[in-house]
């Protein structure tokens, strides 16, 4: 056992895991905070929806598509100057968060838009017929009805962010990915690679399980 995992420094692994957790947690938080309103707007501005706005929809949709079409590894590099401007450094855990949010928020926004479209139009119509304002329709009917779908979207986004966060190791982002690249790849320490991959797998499994449980809990259908 000693020999098998001779290169593994558990303290280092522990810190790297914590860094990954922080990166995923923080970037998920901001992705949801930014992506949710964008998703709601995308839905409302859409064709035959409550606030149909073809121009606003086209602009918003274009921006979301651009961010989503750039491969994340490129987005990481492109974002460096903005990240430095925003928080002073492009390195470490903090430096990884802005590009993660830039990748996660538009992704989540689309998932929100899709899950809102799944809400039965009849429910929106019924709420309108009760004399609800647009704001009341959004918060009283749309979001509660779409909640299971939105939670599933958060789960998918979180898992995507785990993989993005690992990728940010390439530009010195910290976390398990950083460990895997510096030790596992550059120093040929296969045992470190195996451990980091195993930890990432466990992390994703746990996220999916928790997400599924929550979706089930909030589904009344």
């Amino acid at each position: 056992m000693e020999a098998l995992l001779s290169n593994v420094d558990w303290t280092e692994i522990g810190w790297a895991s914590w860094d990954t957790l922080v990166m995923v947690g923080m970037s998920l938080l901001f992705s949801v905070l930014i992506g949710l309103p964008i998703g709601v707007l995308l839905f409302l501005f859409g064709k035959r929806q409550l606030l149909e706005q073809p121009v606003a929809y086209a602009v918003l949709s274009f921006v979301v598509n651009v961010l989503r079409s750039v491969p994340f590894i490129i987005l990481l590099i492109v974002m460096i100057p903005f990240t430095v401007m925003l928080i002073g450094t492009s390195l470490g855990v903090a430096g990884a968060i802005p590009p993660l949010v830039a990748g996660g928020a538009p992704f989540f926004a689309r998932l929100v838009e899709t899950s809102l479209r799944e809400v039965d139009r009849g429910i929106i119509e019924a709420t309108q017929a009760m004399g609800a304002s647009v704001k009341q329709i959004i918060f009283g009917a749309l979001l509660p009805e779409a909640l299971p779908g939105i939670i599933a979207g958060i789960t998918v986004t979180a898992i995507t962010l785990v993989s993005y966060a690992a990728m940010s190791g390439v530009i010195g982002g910290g976390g398990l990915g950083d460990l895997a690249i510096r030790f596992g790849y550059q120093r040929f320490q296969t045992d470190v690679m195996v451990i980091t991959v195993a930890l990432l797998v466990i992390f994703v499994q746990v996220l999916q399980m928790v997400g599924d449980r929550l979706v089930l809990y909030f589904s009344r259908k």
Partner: protein
Amino acid sequence: MIVFDQVQKSYQVGGRAIPALHPTDMTIETGEVFGIVGHSGAGKSTLVRLINLLEPPTGGRILIDDENITDYNAAELRAFRRKVGMIFQHFNLLSSKTVADNIAFPMKLAGIYSKMEIRDRVEELLARVSLTDHANKYPSQLSGGQKQRVGIARALACRPTILLCDEATSALDPQTTQSVLKLLADINRELGLTIVLITHEMDVVRRVCDRVAVMDAGEVVEMGPVSEVFLHPKHPTTRDFVFESESIDRDELQEDLSKADGRILRLTFKGESTYKPLLGSVARESGVDFSILSGRIDHIKDTPYGQLTLSLVGGDLDVAMQALKAADVHVEVLR
């Protein structure tokens, strides 16, 4: 009172205006149950949605209790909609809310009721639609009929003066349809609520409506008291609906009539005359022999009626016709 004054609606499709409702004049009296019957695509859904402006008209005025609702601004419109309940074919309940919360929802949206008022009103409504035991269930745990009863309770929450029913029984089985219609009739009677009901089933109209409008291709083609429209349909579309509801096959009917001898009459009895032993005495007095080719005895809302198709042979036909007319029977000579 709901008054349509040259109300019309058209949709823009690819730069062209497609009319959904041709200019229509119509008056719905306060406290009546008004039916709108038509095939799908006839414009009845549009018509009912004009009343609470879910569909804004493209022309004309809609007056409700002498107020032109097409002039309302957004806030006035929202306040007005609280006074117009609506129920739907597919119920449109919020799946994320319990039965009690669904019923409370319009009151919460209104923002003018206290928690106590809402709780008391929900309890009262649950009792009215016999769902007290299901208050904390979610809609997915209810049957179709129960869901529609929740829909009705929800529509009544803010004490509306008008209730719009959009194919409210079309997704229900016959027995459940019966109980939901009975509930609607009770509500109409006890609360004096005006009910506007759209359906594609003439039978629904026959059971609960006072007056009916028949729609075809975006136009009201016939309108009047249900007994009049139902027993003496004039427009071909109306006839189709009546035949359909009585499961009469026209070709079969023609064949039956062609086999019969003598004159063929259709007699329509309404109210008291339905129960009188009329045919026997008429036959004795005039000496005609009759055979019944088809017939139906039923109710239109609370009024009994009978409609018989007879063939008459021999005797004095004129005397028979006179006697029938004298007894308040509507006589139509078919052949």
